[in-house]
């Protein structure tokens, strides 16, 4: 219970407890003005003790003095000192000076006086007596005071004494205390202790800080008391984790989330007798659901229970009059259940007690439109195949009768009903009480014009995919979707529902028309066309100065050699229709603007070991120089130049994201970014700790995230990390190839448009959708030297192991035949067939 706050002008009964608005100041931990520095303040003088302004301990200033021949005097400081409990102690000290007194004639000591809560003195204690200080020497009197039982507070003071016949003055100064003082007591509240009820004053009283002390507040006398209370502290037994768990999708599955175990439960009614039908009515505290030739109902007020005997059960509608057809619709009429099938309705009395349910009547007026049923005034309206009909009670009798309220609009409703029946759709009925209207809605009628849309995009021979011609509008059911004229490309299969699959088998231009017919006989057509090509889209390369590069079609067809390269470049690149050949370790470089018919040399490229990787951006071609600086040349025919020198321009791999270039190297072991096409570089943090790396370092990007593959020369681990800030910072290692070893290093990293793929020396492939979660695939190909992708195919040039390709993002690979002269495939590039040479 919270203690109420004191209020002004309020009637308080004896025993009422309040807490102050303004809490009293905490009790002192030091006597106030113990050295008289503030003058005659906060002191009580008794006996011969008096305040003087000279002769003090400090600087001959203020102090207490007692003239001679006065037997005794006391300067008692007014500060109330509260110690926590009985038996607690504190120290008090004071300085005494006997002036010209002879030894023993005057005396002085520090004194502590203990008072109870009524301010009555109950005990005093003395410190050591200073009785010999002739010559004006100051001596200290010291006391360890112990709180006696019943004491509320103590006051400290300086006591002085003189024999009767001695006339010399004695001085005291510098009263001080030390120890542990109580501050405000725990749970300090105030209890009304006056004998009768009374009103509080208009202003808050000065609340005493000491337990047991009282203060008068108009009619009320408040006494400081300690409230005893129990403090409850709640702490959670179950705390969810910092991230959302991966929820199980199986009913009964568990997932751990912090200290909580979550169990997946079904939100469906799991009772096997629940028919899970859409023909549902709630009546008599039960749920009724049509179930073919019966109507099941749940237990009373428990829709989860469809089994308990004598509570849940079913109405045997199929065993009654007009029961031959399955239940198709249900409604309520005057608290009775109306069960429709296509031929008639049965009227059932329903009740919480199954024993009280009974068939009342049946009439041959059917409906299959469950959602059209609505009570209107004294009737039940519903849509039947003839139009809108109703059930009512015959005038002046209690016989049920069928009404033909909808007859005026039958010619309008009937054709719609027929069309909706064919389409398997339902009319919606509703009573709109505030307008007094029954609304019957035929959604989607009149229908939008029948339309078929779809487009088989062109492609390359061997390319496969799926899609759909979508039919909208019109009246269902639709006919099969089929080609009505023209010639679709060989390898295209169109299914009856409009879905299609293709695996182009022949090159050529194709045009055809697909059509569909709806239930009303309306025909919709869509003209489609596709160009299937089989031009060269791959540029493959092996070593050898006199060897050509090879141009290959997508999947089907043979490789054609280009002109002899004239240089021993191993990598192949195609950017914007221009072919490039570069080498990872030598200055070999050529380019071609005419699909390899002639190779051009822009001059010597200073490429050293672990260089040769290329990128284009901003009208330049870039090639990594290995330990030499990155090279660039203006497209199409500019000479090589080094826009920047120094270690920051060293690159083992390069990529471009828009106009931003990112390079990485093993030394310095970081990524660097340039937004001025290689003139200046900004370095990020090291991607690998401590020791240097070796082997290939590869980076890849999806246009936003960058992943890096590097080999650690201490552990031989092939590690992958990623960065979302262009290499300024890197994640911790997210994947390492198994079996680290000097012959099992990572060699290539690639993003194929959907998946990230990583390759190592022994032909293992790992892939990831986000560059964070990696999966080692159960395949082995050769040691990839270069990887390229286009139109759903990933192609890996695996040196002497040959050329491998995958149509499922690296999950499975097949070997592709290459020209017999190409025994070592070290370069592969995708040639965008839509981009010509320049």
């Amino acid at each position, binding site marked *: 219970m919270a203690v109420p706050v004191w209020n002004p002008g309020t009637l308080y009964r004896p025993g009422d407890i309040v807490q102050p608005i303004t809490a009293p100041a905490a009790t002192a931990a030091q006597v106030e003005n113990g050295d008289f520095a503030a003058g005659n303040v906060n002191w009580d003088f008794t006996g011969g003790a008096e305040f003087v302004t000279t002769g003090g301990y400090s600087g001959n200033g203020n102090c207490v003095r007692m003239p001679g021949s006065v037997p005794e005097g006391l300067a008692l400081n007014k500060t109330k000192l509260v110690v926590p409990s009985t038996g607690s102690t504190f120290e008090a000290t004071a300085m005494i000076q006997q002036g010209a007194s002879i030894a023993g004639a005057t005396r002085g000591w520090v004194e502590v006086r203990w008072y109870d809560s009524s301010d009555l003195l109950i005990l005093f204690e003395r410190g050591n007596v200073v009785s010999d200080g002739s010559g004006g020497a100051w001596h200290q009197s010291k006391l360890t005071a112990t709180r006696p039982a019943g004491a509320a507070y103590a006051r400290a003071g300086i006591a002085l004494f003189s024999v009767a016949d001695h006339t010399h003055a004695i001085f005291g100064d510098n009263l001080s205390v030390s120890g542990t003082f109580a501050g405000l007591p725990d749970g300090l509240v105030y209890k009304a202790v006056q004998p009768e009820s009374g009103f509080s004053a208009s202003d808050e009283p000065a609340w005493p800080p000491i337990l047991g002390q009282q203060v008068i507040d108009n009619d009320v006398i408040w006494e400081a008391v300690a409230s005893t209370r129990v403090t409850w502290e709640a702490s959670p037994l179950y705390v969810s984790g910092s991230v959302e768990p991966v929820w199980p999708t199986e009913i009964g599955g568990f997932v751990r989330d912090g200290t909580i175990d979550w169990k997946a439960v079904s939100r469906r009614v799991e009772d096997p007798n629940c028919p899970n039908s859409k023909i549902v009515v709630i009546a008599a505290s039960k749920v009724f659901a049509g179930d073919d030739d019966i109507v099941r109902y749940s237990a009373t007020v428990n829709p989860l229970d469809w089994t308990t005997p004598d509570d849940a059960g079913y109405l045997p509608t199929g065993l009654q009059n007009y029961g031959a057809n399955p239940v198709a619709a249900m409604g309520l009429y005057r608290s009775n259940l109306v069960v429709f099938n296509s031929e008639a309705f049965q009227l059932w009395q329903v009740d919480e007690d199954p024993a009280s349910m009974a068939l009342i009547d049946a009439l041959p007026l059917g409906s299959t439109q469950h959602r059209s049923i609505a009570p209107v005034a004294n009737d039940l309206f519903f849509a039947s195949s003839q139009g809108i009909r109703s059930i009512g009670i015959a005038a002046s009798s209690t016989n049920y009768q069928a009404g033909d309220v*909808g007859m*005026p609009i039958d010619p309008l409703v009937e054709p719609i009903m027929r069309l909706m029946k064919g389409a398997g759709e339902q009319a919606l009925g509703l009573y709109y009480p505030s*307008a007094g209207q*029954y*609304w019957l*809605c035929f959604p*989607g*009628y009149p229908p*939008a014009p029948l339309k078929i849309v779809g487009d088989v995009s062109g492609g390359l021979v061997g390319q496969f995919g799926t899609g759909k011609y979508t039919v909208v509008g019109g009246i269902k059911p639709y006919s099969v979707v089929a080609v009505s004229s023209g010639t679709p490309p060989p390898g295209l299969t169109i299914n009856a529902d409009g879905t299609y699959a293709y695996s182009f088998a022949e090159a050529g231009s194709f045009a055809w028309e697909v059509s569909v017919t709806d239930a009303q006989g309306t025909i919709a057509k869509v003209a489609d066309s596709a160009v299937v090509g089989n031009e060269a889209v791959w540029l493959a390369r092996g070593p050898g100065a006199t060897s050509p590069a090879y141009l290959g079609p997508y999947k089907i067809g043979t490789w054609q050699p280009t002109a002899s390269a004239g240089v021993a470049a191993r990598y192949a690149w195609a950017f914007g229709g221009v072919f490039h050949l570069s080498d990872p370790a030598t200055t070999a470089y050529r380019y071609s603007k005419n699909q390899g018919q002639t190779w051009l040399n822009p001059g010597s490229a200073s490429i050293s070991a672990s260089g040769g990787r290329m990128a284009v951006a901003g009208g330049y071609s870039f090639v990594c120089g290995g330990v030499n600086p990155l090279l660039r040349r203006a497209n199409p025919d500019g000479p090589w130049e080094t826009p920047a020198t120094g270690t920051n321009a060293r690159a083992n791999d390069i990529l471009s994201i828009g106009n931003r270039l990112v390079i990485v190297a093993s030394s310095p072991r970081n990524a660097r970014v340039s937004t001025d096409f290689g003139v200046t570089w900004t370095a990020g943090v090291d991607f690998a700790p401590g020791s240097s790396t070796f082997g290939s370092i590869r980076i890849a990007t999806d246009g936003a995230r960058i992943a890096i593959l590097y080999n650690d020369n201490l552990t031989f681990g092939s590690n992958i990390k990623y960065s979302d800030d262009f290499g300024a910072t890197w994640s911790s290692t997210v994947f390492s190839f198994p079996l680290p070893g000097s012959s099992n290093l990572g060699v290539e990293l690639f993003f194929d448009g959907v998946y990230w793929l990583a390759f190592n020396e022994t032909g293992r492939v790992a892939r990831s959708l986000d560059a964070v979660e990696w999966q080692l695939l159960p395949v082995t190909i050769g040691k990839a030297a270069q990887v390229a992708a286009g139109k759903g195919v990933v192609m890996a040039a695996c040196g002497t192991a040959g050329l491998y390709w995958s149509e499922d993002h690296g999950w499975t690979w097949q070997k592709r035949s290459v020209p017999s002269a190409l025994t070592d495939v070290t370069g592969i590039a995708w040639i965008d067939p839509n981009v010509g040479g320049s």
Partner: protein
Amino acid sequence: MSEFFVYSISSVGSVGAWSRYVFPFDVDDWAISGDDLYLRSGDDIHVLNEDLTGDEVSGAGVQPFEGEIQWPWLDFGQPGVTKNLFGFDIVGEGDVSVSFGYDQSNGGYFTDPYAVSADTVPGMVIPMPLSAPSLSVKLTYNGTERWQWNAFSLYLQDLRGMS
């Protein structure tokens, strides 16, 4: 689009009347909350508002819709005998276009719609010389303002039998 048939119960003698509406959007479902009727159409929720004269269509704003009242072909006396119509009066709210069907065969031929004010009773009869054995009156309200029809008078004179 969705087609609605609405049965309105009149307080006079509990007589009901049907009207037909074509909404310019599909209605997936509906519900009544308080006194209002709400319709769901895809991701849109529509509420019926009796103060508005048009339908709000997602992305196309409020679109007024035409209201049409047409009587069946009425003989106005002895069937088959040509009647001579010389004028009419209408009582209602909102400007209206009036058209008369004069040939009930083959879907009927109608006169060009003729716009008149909402209430034509004060003043002269609206002249409409027309002869036909049966007539179908068609009133069209263009939907740009609230409209209501109360009464319609035809001023006819029978011609000689078999004429």
